[in-house]
């Protein structure tokens, strides 16, 4: 299936939840509404024509214009096709519906996106910091992050 077919199929089933698509990029992507990510994900995994059962990568993004986002790279081991999904949300209210019930690997990827970028995944079973210590302040991969001077009495910068 090409990206265009996936897009028309999603648009037919979900209507407003699927916003737009950029089909002429090197790797075409489809933009989805963050509150309905889980149903779109379930459809993509279970529909016999799609069967995207392998989540290759889930990355958090800071677009540096007041918006955060998540990018999902999906792959189907049955049909051997790929698709990219994106969601975007405002920096003040960064809520995205979690897909960890759909693909088990999303659990840790979403924890990492929360840890480094501060994106909150609703319905995640265990959303806490994974790479940084639990008492770390701030979200380092954001573009406006400032390195703290001290952490627990130890000087951080060089």
């Amino acid at each position: 299936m090409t990206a265009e077919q996936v897009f028309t199929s999603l648009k037919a089933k979900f209507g407003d939840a699927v916003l737009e698509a950029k089909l002429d990029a090197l790797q075409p992507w489809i933009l989805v509404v963050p509150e309905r990510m889980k149903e779109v994900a379930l459809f993509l995994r279970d529909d016999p024509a799609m069967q995207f059962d392998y989540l290759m990568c889930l990355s958090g993004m800071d677009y540096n214009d007041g918006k955060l986002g998540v990018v999902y790279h999906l792959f189907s081991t049955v049909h051997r096709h790929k698709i990219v999904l994106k969601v975007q949300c405002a920096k003040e209210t960064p809520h995205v519906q979690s897909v960890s019930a759909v693909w088990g690997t999303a659990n840790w990827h979403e924890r990492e996106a929360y840890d480094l970028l501060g994106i909150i995944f609703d319905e995640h079973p265990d959303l806490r910091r994974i790479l940084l210590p639990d008492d770390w302040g701030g979200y380092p991969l954001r573009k406006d992050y400032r390195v703290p001077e001290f952490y627990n009495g130890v000087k951080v910068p060089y």
Partner: protein
Amino acid sequence: MNGSKTLLTSYVSQPGEIKTSSGKTLRTDEMIINMGPQHPSTHGVLRLEIVVDGEIIVDVIPHIGYLHRCFEKHAEHMTNYQQVIPYADRMDYVAAMNMEQGYAVAMERMLKIEVPERVEYIRVIMAELQRIASHLVAVGTFGIDAGAFTPFLYAFHDRERILDLFEMTCGARLLYNYVWVGGLSHDLPPQFIDKAKEFCKYYRPRIKEFNDLLTYNEIFVKRTANVGVLPKDVAINYACSGPMLRASGVNWDLRRDDPYSVYDRFEWEPQVGKGEMGTVGDTWDRHIVRMREIEQSVNIIEQALAGIPEGNVQAAIPKRIRPERGEIYARTEAPRGEIGYYIVSDGSTTPFRVKARSPAFVNLSVLPEISRGAMLADLVLIAAGVDIVLGEVDR
């Protein structure tokens, strides 16, 4: 229940209770054991919080992040896309060539650069040599975790010869900065091809010797067969890749199925676990898949050495890397699995975002699923069989 199933059912009547020989019931409690960031297993700084009921594991909670070295933040601040290569090296320091190659492949697809044939052949030779070296570290430390110290010495002795080859080419033993976007930093020295052929001839009988020493050893088989079984559908749902996935019976190898470089010119086969000593997808299967992959890598290296063309390895290296606005995700087969780079460019010479999807991070997330119900002593081998490198898990 996963894991060892024979002893349990005769002694434990139901979870939380033990029946004594006189028929009375003893109530048991769960205990939390911390296998801390410092432990004598050589896999690095991983902390496992283990909830045990006697000897049987109820849950394992991995805590990572003790080696988080901010790779993605560094990539955003480099003045040049080539400067990310040394940081990519240090992510999976045991398989540095494969990490560099993954990044170079992603960048070359984004910039639409065609590298010379000689570069592709040399990259394949280096990647396969590095795969052998990485699997030797994996099986050597696996042996130590099982209690066998000698295979470690055998493995490292052979690994030194591979590191000699690397040092001859680029000057470094472990972290190379060799595979650049568009080419390589140095061409092969004149004596490399003969020395590499000599190594391949020397090493083939050593694989059989190593197998006799460790792999088919009765104690080792008893400790690893039927332990940590990973079913196929769980493996795909948790996006496992590399030997973890192939040991569960899935015939999937990125070098053949999502092709990059010139692997299609050589005759080789991805190795799949068949459950010869126990169940498909147990720890012994992962071990034998790695040993057989070493043999396949030697085949690939010999074929590549025979057919390497002439050329200039630095011809296609761009003077200035300034991609258009856009993004790409590209994946290659590292010894631990699928290493993917998601690179976003905003049109300048500095990367906007580089996300590294590391195989060990994803493979480690399946550890709680496969170790429930195993004995405490089996957990060490299950964790060793996943073959993690903490530099890659934490980036």
